[in-house]
């Protein structure tokens, strides 16, 4: 597919003040409309990479472009195109479910009428309509996860970052979320997913990058990866690549 990539990360480097090298000159390109998976062990640099793209982390060097917009110099345009459903629940405890949606839309500059319309749509979609007046801190874990999801989609992003979206979610909700994520992707939304569940990556992603020690150690479609590493599953690829790195 031609055209501007949804995400273009070049030579991103980040060393923490503790001396840990979190990103070791990582480069990554994600085509528009892709369902892209980012896999790797804990501490591999996945979250630092995502945080550097959304400017929660400040990389020491390198560049990030979101649909051709520089994530730092054109941060307003770039950030407007990104939706994030973070690994840890971070809902504003003073707000109700409905307010969470409306305020989020406001933070992204969405006009009020459009925000109301979209709130109705998403509350309905995530079965939250009857909880709309409830404060978010009184919801169950699964419901909070659904609110996070709906919130990330509120401003109609072009790229969606899902950082461990199904962590701590029961099986039923997990399958429901999978279905919904797939549908969003079919509708043209670019998705970047990080997950610990390899079967989740295998079920959802078209392309996968394995990250370890702040570098991309393997990348390709699921079939390509399996073929390259003569593996029967992504789990086997993962163990071969990451295991090889660990034993090095």
């Amino acid at each position: 597919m031609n055209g501007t990539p949804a995400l273009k990360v070049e030579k991103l480097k980040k060393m923490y003040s503790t001396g840990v090298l979190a990103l070791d000159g990582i480069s990554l390109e994600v085509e528009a409309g892709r369902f892209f998976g980012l896999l790797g062990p804990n501490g591999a640099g996945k979250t630092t990479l995502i945080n550097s793209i959304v400017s929660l982390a400040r990389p020491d060097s390198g560049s990030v472009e979101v649909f051709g917009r520089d994530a730092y110099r054109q941060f307003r345009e770039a950030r407007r195109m990104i939706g994030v459903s973070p690994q840890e629940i971070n809902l504003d405890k003073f707000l109700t479910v409905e307010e969470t949606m409306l305020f989020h839309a406001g933070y992204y500059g969405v006009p009020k009428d459009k925000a109301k319309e979209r709130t109705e749509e998403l509350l309905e979609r995530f079965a939250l309509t009857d909880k709309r007046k409830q404060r978010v801190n009184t919801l169950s874990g699964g419901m909070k996860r659904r609110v996070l999801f709906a919130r990330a989609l509120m401003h109609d992003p072009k790229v969606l970052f899902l950082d461990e979206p199904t962590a701590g979610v029961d099986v039923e909700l997990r399958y429901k979320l999978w279905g919904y994520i797939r549908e969003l992707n079919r509708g043209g939304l670019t998705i970047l997913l990080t997950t610990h569940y390899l079967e989740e990556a295998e079920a959802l992603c078209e392309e996968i990058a394995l990250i370890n020690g702040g570098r991309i150690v393997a990348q390709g479609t699921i079939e390509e990866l399996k073929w390259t590493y003569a593996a029967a599953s992504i789990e086997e690829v993962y163990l071969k690549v990451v295991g090889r790195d660990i034993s090095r």
Partner: protein
Amino acid sequence: MILADRPFRTLLSREILRFTRIWVQTLIPSLLTSLLYLLVFGLALGGRIKQIEGIPYLEYILPGVALMNLVTGSQMNSSWSVFDAKRERYIDELLIAPMSDLQIALAYSLGGTLRGVIMGAGVLLVGAPFVGLNIAHPALLLLMGVLSAFTFSALGTTVGALATRIEHISFLTSVVIQPLAFLGGVFYSVEMLPEPLRIATLFNPIFHTVDAARYATLEVSDLNPYPTIAVVFLLAVLAFCGAWWAISRGPNLRY
């Protein structure tokens, strides 16, 4: 335009919603405390002091008590709001939104300013029936109130963004602001103090704001109020630069 931008206006309205939603915690207790000050200091002590500079004691202390309430209210509002958002990580939603650090710092600072002004005005309104207060220079009083509230709200934003533990916030309130407020000439004229204490008081920013508010209300003051406006304006600018810097560089925000 920074102020007309919807993301900025949304955060400001969120800040207002926060303190109005929990008004039982944010507005009522300090209004009651101020009333107690007026009762205890004004009625009990006022029986002995009678007048300062020809003004009945209760009337003399009222503008200062209002300003003390305004300063502590604005400072506490921002420091808690920012610290809570940081501790529970919902500040991330703002940090990744299409909003500049300047706008975030300004929205938090203005939210606290409004709470401070409401609290200060509340004390004046509640106290006025006791003393029959006439405000000599209402516009000047409003200007001083807004500037002082903004200064201390920006200071609260700074500390909230820099704090890594809850004690840092209570330290600001109980070890810095409260003593400065008490020693800021609310309950006495600095002319009544011995020379070294009088000079020390001149370095207390709250003293300058209290003194100017007293002038605006009663036309009596220890210092000329007009240079004070310049001093408070400078403090407001400095405090806001601190807030802006803290939001963009504070620990556990953007790393």
